[in-house]
């Protein structure tokens, strides 16, 4: 039952299920093995605290519990969080600076030992305050955390330095797996190569670069779950293999995302045996001019680059061939903090009248003495959507007389070029897991504050606007503060250009039930609510 994408295109940021997935209407069946594809070669390690790749999450998330998470039955929500190991979501005290969580009693690790608040505390200490020699990739997410206390075996308390709406979503980050304290005390690196959690599935085997397997955890604390007897994730980085495997039912699904062409061919070839779920993706490409290189130090040139691009006409056209779709600003379009279309259209790069916009771009270039400017667009050697976006941009810039050459480089040199400031303009990316605009937009801060902001600019005003937004607890006031920060970033200073957000297309065999798409390929991956209607 395949409907055209266009019918549902209006739902900005909402998960759009193309095929009917009437999971709620049916009673889940027990049993079976879910074989799914992991679109990677292998994860660098199994330590979620250390890694940032989805390969680690898709491989190992089913074996772990977290403190809180997005609702598994409504993972598309950008504002709801529910307990996994806690008993209920706490109301903050101390003017929003203290969060006290009660831990579910009777939870067992897969080795049979009891999970207590001490294990939760040790895991969060490792994430927020990693000991010497331990890498925690998301330390900066928890800059607001002052102290983590475990007063007893059932309670964990997070004390913040300042109240912020960014804390709860950060706490629901899908990489924040709960490890056993006793193991961490003996060896902080044990979890890099080993798996032992308290999640819905117990780890059974791992063939390096080939497959990872798990079996149902009969002691799982969410009653009745998981529904599956076993899971098997097969690693395959080649898209053709994954599509063929789903077509031939060697695998039931994959969780990252396919381009539109693969979706269309799969639907054509497998017909009603395959259904598709789609959603806007909390990932996007950022076009970053190097402020340390002339003439990109001139705001008029940067604005001209933005004004040349017809996002409103480009997005629907690109969405037919690339994994992009929705036009947005610095905030994920599905979030309450995101700009509306009317708000976007006031900023450079989003004007509704493209001719007027390009005339202004030409005027600015002339004024800046940069007419007919030649420069290099550094891009990553990844087809979807990097090279598609890069090629589209070059066409747009040509329309205002710019002569741009695309320099496509492998991932290593691409990072190196950005980190070393060795580029004119670069196609960067901002790919986040949980929708947490207050933290996700840190990418647009000056490099001195946020080292992965590759434009290399100093801008105290930007930091001031960001901090105001970050610490604002009133939703309306925070939204207004976000608009001010966004306008400053994209319009006033034109520090970056945001291209249409990525679009997630997930195929699954029609017998797979219960799983719902979210705005991130990192979320909702414990597979506890999946069942097979066979």
């Amino acid at each position, binding site marked *: 039952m395949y409907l055209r994408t266009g019918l549902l295109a209006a739902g900005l940021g909402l998960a759009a299920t193309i095929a009917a997935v009437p999971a709620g209407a049916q009673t889940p069946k027990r049993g079976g093995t879910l074989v799914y594809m992991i679109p990677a*070669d292998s994860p*660098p390690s199994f330590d979620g605290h250390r890694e940032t790749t989805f390969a680690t999450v898709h491989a190992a998330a089913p074996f772990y519990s977290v403190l809180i998470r997005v609702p598994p039955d409504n993972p598309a929500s950008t504002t709801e969080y529910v307990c996994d190991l806690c008993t209920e979501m706490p109301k903050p005290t101390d003017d929003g600076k203290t969060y006290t969580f009660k831990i579910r009693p009777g939870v067992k690790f897969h080795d049979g030992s009891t999970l207590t608040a001490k294990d939760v505390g040790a895991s969060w200490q490792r994430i927020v305050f990693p000991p010497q020699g331990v890498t925690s990739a*998301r330390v900066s997410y928890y800059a607001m955390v002052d102290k983590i206390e475990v007063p007893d075996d059932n309670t964990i308390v997070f004390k913040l330095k300042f109240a912020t709406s960014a804390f709860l979503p950060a706490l629901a980050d899908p990489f924040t797996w709960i490890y056993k304290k006793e193991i961490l005390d003996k060896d902080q690196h044990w979890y890099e190569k080993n798996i032992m959690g308290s999640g819905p599935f117990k780890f059974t085997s791992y063939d390096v670069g080939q497959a990872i397997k798990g079996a149902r955890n009969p002691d799982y604390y969410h009653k009745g779950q998981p529904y599956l007897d076993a899971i098997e994730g097969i690693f395959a980085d080649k898209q053709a293999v994954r599509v063929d495997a789903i077509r031939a039912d*060697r*695998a039931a699904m994959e969780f990252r995302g396919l381009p539109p062409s693969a979706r269309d061919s799969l639907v054509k*070839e497998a017909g009603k045996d395959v259904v598709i779920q789609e959603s806007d993706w909390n990932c996007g490409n950022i076009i970053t001019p190097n402020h340390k290189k002339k003439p990109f130090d001139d705001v008029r040139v940067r604005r001209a680059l933005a004004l040349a691009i017809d996002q409103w006409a480009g997005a629907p056209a690109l969405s037919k061939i690339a994994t992009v779709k929705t036009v947005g600003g610095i905030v994920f379009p599905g979030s309450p903090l995101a700009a509306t279309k009317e708000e976007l259209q006031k900023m450079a790069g989003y004007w509704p009248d493209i001719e007027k916009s390009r005339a202004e771009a030409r005027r600015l270039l002339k004024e800046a003495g940069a007419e007919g400017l030649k420069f290099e667009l550094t891009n990553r050697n990844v087809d979807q959507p990097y090279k598609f976006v890069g090629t589209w941009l070059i066409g747009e810039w040509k329309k205002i007389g710019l002569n741009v050459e695309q320099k496509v480089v492998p991932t*290593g040199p691409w990072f190196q070029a950005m980190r*070393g400031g060795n580029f004119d303009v670069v196609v960067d990316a901002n790919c986040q897991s949980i929708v947490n605009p207050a933290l996700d937009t840190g990418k647009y801060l000056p490099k001195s504050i946020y080292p992965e902001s590759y434009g290399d600019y100093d801008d105290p005003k930007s930091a001031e606007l960001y901090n105001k937004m970050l610490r604002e607890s009133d939703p309306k006031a925070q939204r207004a503060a976000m608009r001010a920060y966004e306008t400053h970033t994209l319009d006033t200073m034109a520090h970056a250009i945001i291209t249409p957000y990525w679009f997630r297309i997930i195929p699954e065999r029609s017998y797979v039930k219960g799983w719902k798409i979210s705005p991130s390929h990192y979320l909702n991956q414990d597979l506890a609510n999946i069942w097979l209607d066979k």
Partner: protein
Amino acid sequence: MYRYVVTRLLLAVPTLVGAAALVFVLMRLIPGDVCVIRLGAGSHGNPGAIEACRQSLGLDNPLIVQFLDFLGNYFTFDFGTSMWSGRRVAHEIGSRLPVSLQIALMATVIAVLIAIPLGTISALKENTWLDHIVRMVAIAGIATPSFWLGIMSLVLVLDITYLATGKAWMPPIDYVPFWQDPLRNLSMVLLPAITVGYRYSAVTMRMTRSAMLEVMREDYIRTARSKGLLEQIIVNRHALKNALLPVVTLIGIEFAFLIGGLVVTEQVFNLNGIGRLFVQSVQNQDNVMTQALTMLVVTVFVLTNLVVDLLYAWLDPRIRYS
């Protein structure tokens, strides 16, 4: 003979050191490193994470120290730990080697079974319709990239099974060793072995044909015929054995190439082999793994060449090593 083998093995040492130095330098010429790739996109403003990662992997050591560490490890058969996965390199390679080895062996068997009889017949029936057909098959095999043939054969299998049964079928995509489940193992590796073996057989077929043509015009063949020997004996005992000398060399080189060179075929069929690991480790800038794999392939080449040279003596009794 013993002295010859030892000398050849000792002569391989400078080759191995040269290859090691080359790959060591080349890997370090690529901008970026494994830590940047692993954490670059998601360390979320935590530059300390990348620095800590570099320190833990010894990437902050001087290059000469890194090189000497690598050489020392290699010659003590300790290939170190993968910079990407943190697992022992020997374990990573060991888990992939059976797949590559099985495909290489099966492709070799397929190639030899096709190439030697057809190449011989083609030479004996020179310029007949049979010769033309064999040559056409051989040229098509050389001209067709094996990965394309792999993709096409997969599509064909999917479409044919769909048309025939209403359900598309493809070979399994997760490897099971032969001794665990022979049927599943063979249904996975047969198609890739055939696609690789076809190209391999095409090259070997042409070599067999030209070598046979040359040998069949030698004086000793004419002498054998004038003695009234049966054609079958002349071909099998006198011609083919001598014609096989260059063919054996070719088979050896091709076999060694297959151990690390099945990059695209492994990806097309999702085979977790050495070729795929090679590409991954270069992409991930896992220097330790790339160096170990290069040394493995160089070693396989050196050993295969040695075996080929020893086979010469068996094929041609005039050749003696000292």
